[in-house]
């Protein structure tokens, strides 16, 4: 099963796994990852894999670096 690096930003920081790493089942995509983490729908506004914007259906691979962002709007 792939081991990924995960960083949840800003208000999502509480969902960060210990040491920033987690193991996901084979064929897990980003939508599945968000569900696994228990993040309420709609709270993730941006998803990045290996520094590039990604869609919900992107399947995760060994060593992927995933970033999840909430909307940030303060000024």
């Amino acid at each position, binding site marked *: 099963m792939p081991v990924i690096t995960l960083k949840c*930003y*800003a*208000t999502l920081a509480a969902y960060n796994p210990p040491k920033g790493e987690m193991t996901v089942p084979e064929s897990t995509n980003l939508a599945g990852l968000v569900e696994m983490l228990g993040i309420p729908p*709609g*709270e993730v*506004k*941006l998803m*990045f894999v290996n*520094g*590039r*914007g990604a869609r919900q259906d992107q399947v995760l691979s060994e060593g992927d670096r995933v*970033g999840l*962002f*909430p*909307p*940030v*709007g*303060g*000024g």
Partner: protein
Amino acid sequence: MAPDFSGFGRQELVRYARHFVLPEVGPEGQARVKGARVLVVGAGGLGSPVALYLAAAGVGTLGIVDHDVVDLSNLQRQVLHGTSSLGRSKVASARERIREANPHVEVVSHQLRLTSANALEVLEGYDLAVDGSDNFPTRYLLNDACVLQGKPYVYGAVDRWEGHVSVFAAQEGPCYRCLFREPPPPGMVPTCAEAGVLGTLPGVVGTLQAMEALKLVLGAGDPLVGRLLVFDGLALSFRQVHLPRNRECPVCGDEPTQTALVDYDLFCGLEPEPSPPEREDLPQIAPGELRELLAGPSPPFLLDVREPYEWEIGNLGDQGAVLIPMGELQRRMGEIPRQRPVVVYCHVGVRSALVVEALRAQGMDGVWNLRGGYLAWADEVDPSLPRY
């Protein structure tokens, strides 16, 4: 050919001396800066460093948009304003401070809230816009207006310890809508007032925005087009992620479906789905009704879910209110009596509405929201309470 300093007076030659020696600026670049017209939307946490640094750098014309007045709680981060400006319009306060920073800058005051009706007209006179706003409708509005007029939009946003910076220049890269296709549901994203923001954070992010604006004016370096810079103040780290342009973007895509401004409050869900305090299905009580209940034979349990510092500013303790901050509620549920009606209040009634919903979802039926919160109570029942 000898450098041409003819466009600068003696004072300016000294003032901009450190720019003149930079190869990327020099007299030609400084002349471009002097001829630049930059619109700063919001004279708050981000707008403060943006306006101050652009003014100090010699941007010839700075437009400042804001409709608010200076509040004491602004001064922890909004360095454009001082204690003597409390209660004044932010635009007037900003104008005075900018002119003090650099009298060679022309400041154009736009004392207004940017809307679909005025945005294109306001933006028309400027080369680019810098976003220091604090709400999503204004961000979408400014993005769309900039796309429609083909002008770069320097984006910045802050939350607690984290900030974002990017440059949206739709001819070359993505726009804000490519990044955030749909606005977040109303009330989901806490404001700076609710979530907090470290005072220096907008200083860092706004200064980066000012730098990007100057680079765009100068045509120097690589602007943050197609890249999002994420600053984490706790880790003190900067990360960059690459942003793809969405070819199906309704505003900047290959075949745009939106070619004019729309109603951005509506787009962000602020009208069709009213904010919690106005929802018809939310049990609410007006301040006057609460006063009568509290004076009656079976007064309700009065629950204050604000933060402790807010309680210190003013509270309804003399009416029997008990403070349980929203974040501690789950742990302290046992302190809420089940046999008495409960009235929940916060600052203006938004956080307390969420608490009322949560308590009702847990089976507590006799729970009401104080409509308009602490501020409405202060307005309608007890004017002696301090406002904030």
